[in-house]
């Protein structure tokens, strides 16, 4: 069973190449508001997480997610 911290750690590493503004990442960092991900980049980033953990992340959870911490929490809940 993958725990919350493991999801969080992978999200940080997956964001490295997309974090062009070199924002300091924390659980409160906003994916679109702070890092400035475009809609296409969000999709690429979600695919990376899906492939790494062999899970599917439904698109309909995304409107409730704005920060890194919220995303890790949602994915963790999906796969409990």
């Amino acid at each position, binding site marked *: 069973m993958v725990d919350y911290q493991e999801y969080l750690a992978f999200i940080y590493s997956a964001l490295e190449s997309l974090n062009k503004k070199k924002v300091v990442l924390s659980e409160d960092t906003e994916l679109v508001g702070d890092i400035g991900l*475009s809609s*296409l980049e969000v*999709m690429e980033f979600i*695919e990376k997480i899906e492939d790494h953990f*062999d899970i*599917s992340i439904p*698109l*309909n959870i995304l409107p409730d997610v704005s920060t890194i911490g919220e995303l890790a929490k949602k994915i963790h809940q999906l796969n409990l």
Partner: protein
Amino acid sequence: MLFDKFQAMADFRAELAEQDVAPFGAVTEKILSATEGIVQGHKVILAGTNNYLGLSYDARCIAKAQEAAQLWGTGTTGSRLANGSFEGHQALEDEIAAFYGVNHAIAFSTGYAATMGMCATLAGPGDVILLDADSHSSIYSGVKLSGADIIRFKHSNPDDLAKRLRRLGDRAGQALIIAEGIYSMLGDVAPLQEIAAVKREYGSYLLVDEAHSMGVLGDSGRGAAQAAGVESDVDFIVGTFSKSLGSVGGFCVSPHAELEHIRFCINAYIFTASSSPSVVASTREALRIISSEPELRTQLWQNSNRLYDGLKSLGLKVGPSASPVIAIEFEDHAKTIACWQGLMDRGVYVNLVVPPASPSSNFLLRNSVSAAHTPQQIDTIIAAYASLKDSGMLTSAEYDAA
């Protein structure tokens, strides 16, 4: 602020204005034929229209539209569920069902409404939809409204689809898979044989959007599922009347009798006025023509091959195989816009496509071929690209390295 989110669009429009080009919503001042018009003051060959069989300007379709307007008036002024079901709508549904060899059909006022409406209604909360990542906006809008869990699979990748169905466990048997026949922007054909095999393995449902493949693929023009020999695996086909049939409107056909109940649950069908009688009449005539004149499809493919081979021989990076939609991808956005204008100046109108309509961050020059193009017109389009290349407007980024 309410308007802050539109700033990026405002900036992009300002950039276009600075270059003095207006590629989006370019106004056609006159239509001269199915393949020629005057657009923004330029007499151009229309090579960005989706008018695959050239029927928008067919004399027989025009005559039927005129006759229907005389007999039935200009509009129905109501929903299909109220006062807007005329004889023609019923006949059109019977004829489109017969064309597809199934018993059930719904006609919608636009293709967007058909696709969006079906995707929003078929699955609901608790259900799962698996859609191709490069699906059309009407599919994305529909599934968003459905309340179902929405899972994307990698574009035209049956293995990724299978992997995601496996992850669903017992829910896979109730899942709705959504794919298209020909993808509208790059013109690639979906691997429907393989997708249908995955669908059979998991016992899911399959909806195929044949908007760009109806009239284009298949022995009798029914689309990509017919061409792949998997029509019996497809639960729902949606499509449009606004491309190969040259009018406007959309449809869903299905072998499932439940479609007759579903009809009464689709907001995009109920809460909008039905198609005008003239539109219904020209659509019916066009459907009759594509059924009885397969030579239109032969001509379309001859023209598509001619343009594809011509652009390829210039060294341009085109898709892996010929298709009535042939797109050239550009990483340099400003250059794409300049080339679009360059083609206009050389008498050729094509579509300029930008994200999110293009499937990546690249811009596209999208060419669509018609059966009504003459070989000379196709050669003029190729010559326009050759001239762009000679003048240095197209550079090695758009050439194939090979």
